[in-house]
């Protein structure tokens, strides 16, 4: 038992660090993803990685994966987190991509995988529906066969960044008479330019527009766009959800955020001394630090299990719960650190960027919005309540 990286792993770290330093777009360094960025910024790094052949490390090598070990992938994510890199969006690379190479036919692989790898095709996810929430299988969107086409009608929601999407993958009910809600669902790829699709942005409590409602009205989709077998979509959907959960602990990013929090707390004052020297505040930061250490080792243990061939099972639910709790706590403490300057609503400040007096320190500007926005993490990707249900059933056997 030891925590050391092998010489090969250390060399790998140096290689990727150098590559990132040289190639990551300078104007994006450290900024992280925000919904109000120009869309080309969101895929800039993806496109660079596509050219390098590093955009889909976890894929099988025959489809363009890098063949890295789980430890190498961990190092890769750590190094990217260090510059707060905007990684390839998951909808193509981690969600539909693996479904296509696992269950799609050759034509589908040929048509779609290159665009996903290169970042030239933007994908979105059509899973959730209004009213469905954690009960995904209760979906109502229908796909009715009409000759060589499916005619699709329904409404999807929480379609992240669909405003920029070229393609989407959708779960639709193809057999309304199936015995169970999980049956009779099909997994269909849809060109987002098809007539009848309307994407309406949803304003969130932080003021941003990262998700959408997507309305489908008599959308005609060629039957070739069906993945796998008709009515077997739930199988592919579950496969996809298991993929989605890996990496959700977000340890590397949270470590970086703890350092940013410490930086802020060194600049903010309490009783004329750095807030970081206030015992109350220092204690909260140390608690977060300790919780994050525990999560990191837990993730490494899971990773070690993966390398030994034990796939990520229900333990990933623990990573999701603790990971999101830490992410939320981080933004809560950051908001607390900035004091009064968490109150202004910076998005709507008139004449922002003008020569007027600034409002508070720059690091305060996203503090409230981030705190509000991060409440989503314990809701999405299977709410933390659902994760507890999973652990209760799968691990504790209750």
């Amino acid at each position, binding site marked *: 038992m030891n925590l050391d990286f092998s010489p090969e792993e250390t060399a790998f770290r140096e290689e990727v660090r150098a590559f990132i330093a040289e190639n990551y777009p300078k104007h994006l360094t450290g900024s992280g993803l925000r919904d109000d960025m120009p869309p080309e910024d969101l895929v800039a790094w993806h496109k660079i990685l596509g050219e390098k052949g590093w955009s889909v490390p976890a894929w099988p090598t025959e489809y363009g994966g890098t063949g890295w070990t789980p430890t190498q992938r961990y190092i890769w994510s750590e190094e990217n987190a260090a510059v707060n890199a905007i990684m390839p969006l998951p909808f193509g690379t981690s969600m539909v991509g693996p479904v296509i190479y696992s269950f799609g036919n050759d034509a589908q692989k040929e048509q779609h995988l290159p665009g996903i790898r290169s970042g030239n095709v933007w994908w979105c996810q059509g899973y*959730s529906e209004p*009213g469905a*929430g*954690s*009960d995904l299988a*209760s979906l109502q969107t229908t796909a009715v066969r009409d000759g060589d086409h499916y005619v699709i009608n329904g409404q999807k*929601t*929480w379609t992240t960044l669909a405003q920029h999407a070229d393609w989407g993958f959708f779960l639709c009910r193809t057999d309304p008479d199936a015995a169970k809600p999980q049956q009779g669902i099909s997994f269909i790829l849809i060109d987002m330019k098809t007539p009848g699709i309307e994407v309406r942005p*949803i*304003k*969130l*409590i932080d*003021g941003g527009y990262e998700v959408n409602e997507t309305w489908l009205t008599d959308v005609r989709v060629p039957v070739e766009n069906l993945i796998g077998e008709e009515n077997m979509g739930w199988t592919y959907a579950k496969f996809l959800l298991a993929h989605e959960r890996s990496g959700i602990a977000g340890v590397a990013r949270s470590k970086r955020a703890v350092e940013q929090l410490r930086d802020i707390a060194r600049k*903010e*004052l*309490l*009783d*004329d001394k750095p*807030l970081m020297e*206030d015992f*109350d*505040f220092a204690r909260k930061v140390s608690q977060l630090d300790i919780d994050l250490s525990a999560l990191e080792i837990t993730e490494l243990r899971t990773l070690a299990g993966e390398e030994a061939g034990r796939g990520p099972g229900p333990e990933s639910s623990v990573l999701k719960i603790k990971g999101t709790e830490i992410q939320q706590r981080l933004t*809560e403490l950051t*908001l*607390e650190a900035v*004091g*009064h*300057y*968490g*109150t*202004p*609503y*910076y998005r*709507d*400040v*008139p004449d922002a960027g003008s020569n*007027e*007096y600034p*409002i*508070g320190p720059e690091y305060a500007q996203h503090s*409230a*919005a981030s*705190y*509000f926005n991060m*409440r*989503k993490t*314990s*809701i*999405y990707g299977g*709410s*933390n*309540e659902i994760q*507890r249900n999973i652990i209760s059933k799968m691990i504790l056997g209750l």
Partner: protein
Amino acid sequence: MDFNFTDEQNMVRDSLTRLVRENYDTETRREAISSESGWRPELWAQIAELGLLGMPFSEEDGGFGGGAIDSLVVMEEFGRGLVVEPYVPSVVCAGGFFKHGGTDAQKEEHIGAIVDGSRVYAFAYAEPRGRYDLADVDTSAKKDGDGYVLNGHKAVVIGAPWASHLVVTARTSGDRRDKAGISVFVVDKSADGVVTRDYPTVDGRRASDIYFENVSVSADSLIGEEGKGLPLIELVTDEAIAAQCAEACGAMKVAIDMTVEYSRQRKQFGVPIGKFQVLQHRMVDMYTEYEQSKSMSYLATLKLGESEKERKSAVSAAKVRIGQAAHRIGQEAIQIHGGMGMTDELAIGHYFKRLTIFDSEFGNVDHHMKRHIALAAS
């Protein structure tokens, strides 16, 4: 011991309940706060007409002879509706300064204008470096002939864009963090050298950062004694905290009611989510937090007239307990609403945001816990 409100207070509550119901549904509020001015002066006039702005002032000062309990009633109802109109800045804060520290002339000029709603005031106390320390005042007021000249920067002055006048804390002597040497002034916002940077706040109000650049004020702008302003500032701030605690309780109650109601309507796996025991117990904990908060809100208000130590201890205890409850209730309300709770469309998110910002006004949980500990040890 008596936990009942007077008939008059109950009448006030009823008329406010109506006013809020009629003017503060989610859609109307959204429109109002996203309008250019961000508030409704006509509603303020209506509130003034109902006599609500005069409640906490004595009759001889031009009010209706009530006190802090009346403000509690008003602010509970304001909290229920997420009312943004500036009762605390104008009536409780500015009004409080004149009531406790004003000369007869000041009372006549200012309290009258507050009560009839003809002027709106804001309270400019916080500074970028001072965090929640009321004695950390860098803004200076230098004697100049009969008057003073103000220089400095006040941070996040709530309600300032709507105000015609400001109550400002400034240093007339001593070093930046000295307890002595702080004075309080009333300043016409249109005076030369008052530079404001206005903005909306995340909880739907408006605020300004204000720069005083050689602002001349006359001698009669001084409220209370020169250099001895801190005890007055502490008293008024405690009154403001008690009022905001009541506001938070009103907001919490609605957030809980909305969450319980949502859990009854919203189905998952074929049953209303309110049938899941885990969510039931969490909503029970929200309710319990609220009941404890309400008790602390009463305690803070009822102790405002006691000795300085008793008052500060009760107010800090309330701010701590309600700050904790506000965070927890806000977070749980969003979580139980799920994805819908994240949308700007539903009202619950707005309650969450107001309950979040509550903590950082007039000192957060940690600040008041420290004050409470220091008082317990004294």
